[in-house]
């Protein structure tokens, strides 16, 4: 289904009676992915997959090393002209004199709208292709009947979907030129949503999907078959990595004084409030109780900070006096009873190998009045007193505990009330298992882990949290840079290669090479493999090193010397080749015709075109290097 032609009316406005004519919509072919389609390149018989790509690929454990020896001819799959190389629609009015002739690239179309057609209203079926969702403006077509309109609509949806990369996997429409006979897999809506989510999150994946699946090179199911782990992981995890609390102690709000008056100012944000609530359950409870029934939110926080200020300035006398007068303020000064209760519950669940509380049970030496008084034991404060002084240590411990527990809900922190309520809700969800767990196996396993001597016996796998990497390329490159940094020691800066060639020489050499190939044809590889390997190593190291040297400014690296668009292309080709290779090798051994077709027509064709493009860039780099 590369194109469709339907009679329609073009209208500029709703009221406009419209111009009748023929609407023709064209979709791009699964075009060869040639971008650097220079003429001379097309005839090379390269070792078509650049070594460095393969090596990288191998490093991730995807491709067998025999791939290095693989060499295959490629023929440019220019099965059709380039006229269908882009998605567009044309409108040709029936009246040839009419000026309403359209030839629009789908690139400019951002969205489409259509009206509901039912018998009750005399409204004709309309389709509106809007240029820009904000500004309006677009093309409106009127159709004779709903079916035609729906056909058009679906076509447009698919094209637009392809452009935005979020087209739902086709369930009912089989591509026309499908070369496989596999049935499209039946997907539940959950799975489909999951795939769409994955595509949305990962732009690189989306590009690949667009190129191969929508380009009809790979089947939807094939594409996803190599990414089972992605789907599984996502299913297991259930939720994404959640942002946690900041390590900084936000709840410890410092007052700012203006220096002229006796006023101090505390400033609050919802983030801070959230942390205060999480760290001080008593304040949270008070807030839920008092606001807004008893006092306004502003009054509440004023009181709170009044109490805080008294604590901070260590003005115990004033604190006691204020607390006696104002019972709400006293709440903020008292020991947090909720915390004490939680602590009692938690202490039953701690690792027995660090349960110091149990030691107190066996300590007969330090009975009151016994033992020798040390520094510190004298500082036992009266826990009976209501206004036991809160210490910085307690605050620190509490803060760190809250940070560790993490945020329990994803609620947008918009205003205080929602914050307070969300927190209260998440608190309730906590299981209130108060029974001491003597038979808890997790605890026992922990003790066993703590006691055994690790190198006297075999290794043991530890539970881990899966790492969520947003941008794999960035991540792995920086990892490699780090690794090289530690290996390379202090040998900073690139080694200066003694180049025997001057720039001119190199250029002439390159030209000679090209012309010799022109003469000799495709008989031998353009670059000897050992030379290529050397170049590759040099390149890889150079890229990593330059990246390490100026992490902040990656543009200046070796890759940065290549024009921006070329680099982007190169990277795109690289990922595309990886993907194709994965499919290529996974098709071996070829057992069915389906696989045969896949290898021959789809994968190889696209692979060769991509690698050709890459090869060109490689040569270019080679040139740069020798320069």
């Amino acid at each position: 289904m590369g194109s469709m032609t339907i009679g329609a009316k073009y209208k500029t406005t709703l009221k406009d009676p419209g111009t009748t004519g023929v609407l023709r919509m064209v979709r791009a072919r699964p075009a060869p992915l040639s971008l650097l389609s220079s003429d001379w390149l097309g005839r090379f018989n390269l070792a078509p997959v650049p070594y460095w790509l393969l090596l990288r690929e191998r490093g991730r454990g995807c491709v067998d090393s025999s791939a290095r020896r693989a060499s295959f001819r490629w023929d440019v799959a220019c099965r059709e002209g380039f006229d269908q190389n882009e998605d567009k629609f044309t409108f040709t009015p029936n009246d040839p004199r009419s000026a309403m002739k359209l030839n629009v690239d789908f690139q400019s179309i951002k969205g489409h709208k259509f009206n509901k057609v039912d018998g009750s209203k005399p409204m004709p079926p309309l389709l509106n292709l809007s240029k820009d969702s904000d500004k309006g403006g677009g093309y409106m077509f009127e159709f004779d009947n709903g079916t035609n309109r729906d056909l058009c609509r679906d076509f447009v949806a698919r094209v637009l979907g392809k452009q935005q990369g979020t087209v739902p996997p086709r369930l009912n429409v089989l591509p026309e030129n499908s070369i496989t006979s596999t049935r499209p897999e039946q997907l539940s809506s959950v799975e489909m949503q999951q795939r769409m989510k994955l595509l949305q999150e990962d732009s690189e994946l989306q590009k690949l999907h667009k190129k191969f699946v929508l380009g009809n090179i790979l089947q939807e199911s094939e594409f996803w078959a190599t990414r089972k782990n992605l789907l599984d992981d996502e299913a297991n995890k259930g939720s994404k990595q959640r942002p946690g609390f900041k390590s900084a102690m936000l709840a410890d709000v410092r007052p700012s004084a203006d220096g002229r008056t006796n006023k101090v100012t505390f400033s609050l944000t919802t983030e801070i409030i959230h942390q205060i609530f999480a760290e001080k359950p008593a304040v949270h409870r008070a807030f839920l109780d008092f606001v807004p029934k008893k006092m306004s939110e502003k009054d509440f926080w004023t009181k709170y900070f009044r109490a805080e200020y008294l604590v901070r300035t260590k003005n115990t006398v004033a604190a006691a006096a204020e607390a006696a007068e104002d019972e709400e303020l006293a709440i903020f000064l008292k020991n947090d009873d909720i915390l004490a209760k939680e602590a009692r519950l938690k202490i039953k669940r701690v690792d027995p190998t660090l349960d110091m509380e149990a030691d107190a049970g066996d300590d007969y030496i330090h009975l009151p009045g016994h033992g020798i008084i040390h520094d510190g034991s004298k500082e036992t404060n009266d826990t009976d007193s209501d206004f036991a002084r809160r210490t910085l240590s307690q605050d620190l411990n509490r803060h760190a505990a809250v940070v560790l527990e993490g945020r329990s809900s994803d609620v947008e922190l918009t205003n205080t009330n929602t914050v307070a309520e969300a927190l209260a809700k998440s608190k309730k969800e906590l299981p209130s298992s108060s029974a001491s767990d003597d038979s808890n196996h997790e605890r026992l396993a922990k003790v066993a882990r703590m006691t055994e001597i690790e190198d006297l016996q075999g290794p043991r796998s530890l539970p881990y949290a899966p790492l969520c990497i947003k941008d794999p390329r960035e991540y792995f490159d920086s990892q490699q840079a780090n690794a090289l940094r530690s290996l390379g020691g202090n040998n900073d800066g690139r080694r200066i290669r003694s180049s025997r060639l001057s720039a001119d020489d190199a250029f002439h050499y390159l030209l000679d090479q090209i012309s010799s190939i022109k003469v000799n044809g495709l008989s031998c590889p353009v670059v000897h493999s050992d030379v290529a390997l050397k170049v590759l190593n040099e390149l890889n190291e150079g890229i990593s090193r330059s990246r390490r040297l100026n992490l902040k400014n990656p543009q200046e690296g070796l890759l940065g010397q290549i024009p921006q668009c070329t680099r982007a292309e190169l990277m795109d080709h690289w990922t595309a080749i990886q993907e194709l290779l994965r499919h290529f090798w996974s098709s071996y051994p070829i057992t069915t015709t389906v696989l045969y077709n896949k290898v021959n027509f789809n994968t190889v064709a696209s692979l060769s075109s991509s690698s050709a493009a890459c090869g060109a860039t490689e040569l270019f780099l080679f040139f740069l290097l020798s320069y």
Partner: protein
Amino acid sequence: MKFDVEGMTVHFPYAAIYPEQHAYMGELKRALDARGHALLEMPTGTGKTAALISLITSYSLANPARPLRLIYCTRTVHEMEKTLAELRLLFSHLPPAAARSLLALGLSSRKNLCVHPQASASAARDSVDTACRRLTASWVRDKAASDPESTPLCDFFESFDRAASAGDLASYMPPGVYTLSDLRALGRERRICPYFLARQMVKYANIVVYSYQYLLDPKVASIVSREMQKECVVVFDEAHNIDNVCIEALSVSIRKQTLEGAERNLRRISQEIDRFKATDANRLRAEYNRLVDGLAQKGNLPISDAWLANPALPDDILKEAVPGNIRRAEHFLAVLRRLVRFLDGRLETENVENEMPVSFVASIHSQAGIDQKMLRFCYDRLHSLMLTLEITDTDEFMHIQTVCDFATLIGTYTRGFSIITEPYDERMPDIRDPVIQLSCHDASLAIQPVFDRFQTVVITSGTLSPIDLYPRLLNFNPVISRSFTMSLTRDCICPMVLTRGSDQLPVSTKFDMRSDPGVVRNYGRLLLEMSSAVPDGIVCFFVSYSYMDGIVNSWNEMGILQDIMQHKLVFIETPDVVETTLALDNYRKACDCGRGAIFFSVARGKVAEGIDFDRHYGRLVIMFGVPFQYTLSRILLARLEYLRETFQIKEGDFLTFDALRQAAQCVGRVIRSKADYGMMIFADKRYSRHDKRSKLPGWILSHLHDAHLNLSTDMALHIAREFLRRMAQPYDKTGSGGNKTLLTEEDLQNMALDAMEM
């Protein structure tokens, strides 16, 4: 694995063994053969416990004539749990027949073992004890027999009692390893009291693991450890502090509050006596007759009535009748009143007084008319009286007990103690807080009965240097006294001495420097730099609570703390054990999940004593300052004087020894096995001096390169980075060439063959 140590088969629970463990076993076997005491120092991180228990268990398996009786003393409950876990691992590697016949159990107080839903609910040990006594005391049960409705009893104890009288306690506890939580689970399941069950089964168990105090503190030892036989092997693990435990066990202090409480107690006792006179005069008369015959408790008290015993040692108490003039309850009460009044008078003093027990007893005699013999019997007489009066809430009577403890101790011992009366704390002369402290200086007093009673006592730790000092302090003659070095596959520890901050100014916690803002900032910068370079956990030790509090507050004000928190979460040890325990638990979680954390702790504190910061829980430990004791303390001065006179140990030497063993103990917590690695920074300029440094244990000194003796912050940071990079590389665990650091069964066989040939 199985191998031979000097002709004896040893079962070891791992597939490989360190050479020093092998050597350690050899020495231990020699001590067992000679039936004598041993003093063994082996660095932390070399698996002392595993070596110890494997050898002793295997020894008795190989010598059926010497059945396995091992008392393993740990400092803390969590170390007890760890030891029991290692025992469980060992048992699973023993021949099945042997494993099926051995019983190992841990013993702790009611608080850690009680499963009664109400009684176990209270947080303090005293209240659990009291709640238990209310349900299980013999008179309560007598009363319940006549009046079952209104007298609640403990079902768990009743079923224990039935089983004990039927003699089938063993059926409740089949052989195996029982940790405290196992005991509780067993108690819940079989509905039997785990505490009393464990206490009874201690007599039959092959291995008992409990706290030092059950053997060293006379107050509990005479109850729990009374029936242990001479054949027992006693092990004190992590025993570098044992002298302090000993002297603390025999020290008592009396304050104003104690005396006020004691007077309250006396009033209550007098009311009770009046009540009994009116209702049940026979009971008092019967007690009188019993006291004429001899001491109140001759070992035939019901198990549930026993409570803290005489503070002095059993052998020191004369086996004779209670003096006539305190046999009658009223007379005894009058004596106690006079004693309290006398002590009250002594507290009124304006001057610091330091007396020996003899002169103190003489002044009691002249002023209160109480002679030495009456003093000595105070505690037992009180105990007897309270039993007679059927007092169950013993925790209320703590004050009068303290006074009687004091009296009994000064009545019993004439040397090795001093009585110091201070009107106020040296550091806060404005606040009047008078105290009479009876402090023991002679560690050998408390431990002597242990050496006398048991044929083999093993004292072992990672830091016992100088190893010749301990036999003098504890007054015993070990047949084996040896210090082992650590064979290392790679340099997995990296000690450094940091003397200067990044601004090249010296850092120290010397008294005149510690509050200098420059030093505080330099210490803070050091931690900040390190927290950005070191992964996972960092532990910091400070010299005291007050110093830690001060410096953390200063860092908070300077903003350094906030910067540190950018890199890692911060946890602090506080005097409150519950909070500290939770903080530690969270600290481990933070290290587990990769967030990384810093733990601030205090040398000589509870954390420094017993918590391991091994593996990723501690990649770096920083010791801020030298943890000297508070040298102006009069108790310490008195002890130093005693040490000089009795053992000819110089004050300075002892102080340095004590400080450095604490420091070594703190930094030693980071390493647990040879696969582990960690850095240690001694941040004080005083560590660079030879007299201080040389007192560190050998295994630290051997890694302390000369280049690392005088570092500044940036140099230390560089070394740390290099070290971490080196440690991240894969390495050969078994060591290479002639320097094997990990021996397999095969290696051991070859070694044995070589020895034969030679």
